[in-house]
């Protein structure tokens, strides 16, 4: 029998929002792997050292690759330098805004805030908007109708994903929002998660971003070269591939509407360079379950809870061997998802398997 499904409503103000609330999926209690308080406290401990080191390496490599790009500008030798600069600017900024938004990267608050604002600008994510959307993402991870950060709604938009390898779709959406915010307005969905008292900040930062982009554009016109934009603005696009390559591993193709991060998130083993770029966000189950644990302690947290988690993926290849066919299948079959195997299925939180709200009807 062929079946057709009623598409899910991923907006934050639609049918599935109401259903999520009615079904107790909004701001719900989530499963946590057991871990002694003393051990968790040790893992949660903050320090400035690791993030100062990683930020110094980040800025130094940005500077050196930028210098190389500038020096060799006009020759093919500039390409590898700008490739490195772009990845550090457009991709590495993703994990930096993220860690600093949690306030866990550094112990010192203002250091988190400074790096947060720099990284947000680099990846074109408005700091106030994303702070609040990410808050909701942690409250209602991959709960349809509640989570504003579901990267791959079903059926997946494959073209959009491919365009986002160079941040083309995401930047188009971000620019439209910047223009809206600069005029002192939010869209209806944003109003559901950004409190009144924070909104003025959104508007002023949007104006500041646009002023910076206008200044870079004027500079380019004045000197008749795109070189300034190669340093500020364009690397958000040409340096974006790893935002998608790393980012899709987090939740794509896994279950929806389930109150257990072991079933809707992936932990993927990665090499040290990737882990530097991604600040250990490959330990994504661990991060979601215990967001208080700083990125540099996630490998230890992983070791502490892995016996109670599904088997991690052994590298990006293994993760993508699952993600690509799953997303392609979801284009035709939006109800399909990968079900992660728990070590002890009896300890699973009862869940909806993401299809509870999809009415399955026989096709004519």
């Amino acid at each position, binding site marked *: 029998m062929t079946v057709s499904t009623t598409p899910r409503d991923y907006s934050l103000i639609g049918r599935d929002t109401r259903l999520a609330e009615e079904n107790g999926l909004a701001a719900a209690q989530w499963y946590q792997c057991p871990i002694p308080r003393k051990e968790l*406290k040790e893992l949660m401990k903050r320090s400035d050292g690791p993030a100062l080191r990683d930020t110094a390496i980040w800025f130094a490599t940005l500077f050196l690759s930028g210098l190389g790009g500038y020096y060799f500008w006009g020759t093919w030798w500039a390409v590898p330098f700008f490739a490195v600069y772009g990845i550090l600017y457009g991709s590495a900024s993703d994990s930096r805004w993220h860690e600093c938004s949690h*306030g*866990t990267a550094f*112990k010192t608050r203002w250091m988190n805030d400074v790096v947060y604002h720099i990284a947000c600008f680099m990846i074109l994510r408005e700091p*106030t908007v994303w*702070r609040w959307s990410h808050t909701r993402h942690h*409250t209602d991870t991959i709960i349809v109708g509640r989570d504003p950060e579901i990267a791959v709604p079903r059926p997946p938009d494959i073209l959009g994903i491919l365009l986002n390898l160079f941040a083309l779709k995401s930047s188009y959406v971000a620019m439209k929002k910047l223009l809206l915010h600069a005029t002192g307005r939010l869209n209806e969905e944003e109003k559901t998660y950004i409190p009144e008292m924070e909104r003025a900040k959104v508007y002023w930062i949007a104006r500041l971003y646009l002023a910076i982009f206008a200044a870079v554009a004027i500079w380019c016109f004045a000197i008749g070269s795109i070189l300034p934009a190669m340093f500020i603005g364009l690397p958000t696009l040409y340096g974006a591939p790893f935002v998608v390559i790393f980012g899709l591993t987090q939740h794509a193709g896994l279950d929806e509407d389930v109150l257990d991060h072991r079933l809707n998130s992936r932990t993927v083993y990665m090499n040290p360079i990737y882990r530097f770029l991604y600040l250990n966000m490959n330990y994504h189950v661990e991060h979601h379950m*215990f967001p208080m644990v700083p990125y540099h302690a996630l490998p230890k947290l992983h070791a502490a809870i892995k016996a109670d988690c599904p088997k991690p993926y052994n590298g990006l290849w293994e993760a993508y061997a699952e993600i690509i066919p799953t997303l392609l299948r979801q284009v035709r079959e939006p109800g399909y998802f990968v079900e992660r195997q728990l070590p002890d299925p009896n300890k699973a939180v009862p869940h909806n398997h993401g299809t509870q709200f999809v009415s399955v009807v026989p096709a004519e």
Partner: protein
Amino acid sequence: MTTTTATQWIEACAADDIDEEDVIRFDHDGRTYAIYRSPDDEYYATDGLCTHEQIHLADGLVMDHIIECPKHNGRFDYRTGQAKGAPVCVNLKTYPVRIDGDKVLLGLA
């Protein structure tokens, strides 16, 4: 904070039940509280649930005089209840605490 003669002192825990620079949960009469022991060995108490969403602060992290919520890392000064910025915007209610021998007593109106 003003306390009146109507304050009822409830035994919450033994002083040693809380490590230095840590917090525990105490439930009483259908309500939940967080009892803190600061690095300078003082005891404090606040409402047990974060004012952002209903999350138990006792699962959070105490750093100096700050309690950080385990859900979205919202921070409060547990001595005053003051919310220290987004995503927490509403202050926590605080309660007086008294040490009697090795017992921690919580003052409830």
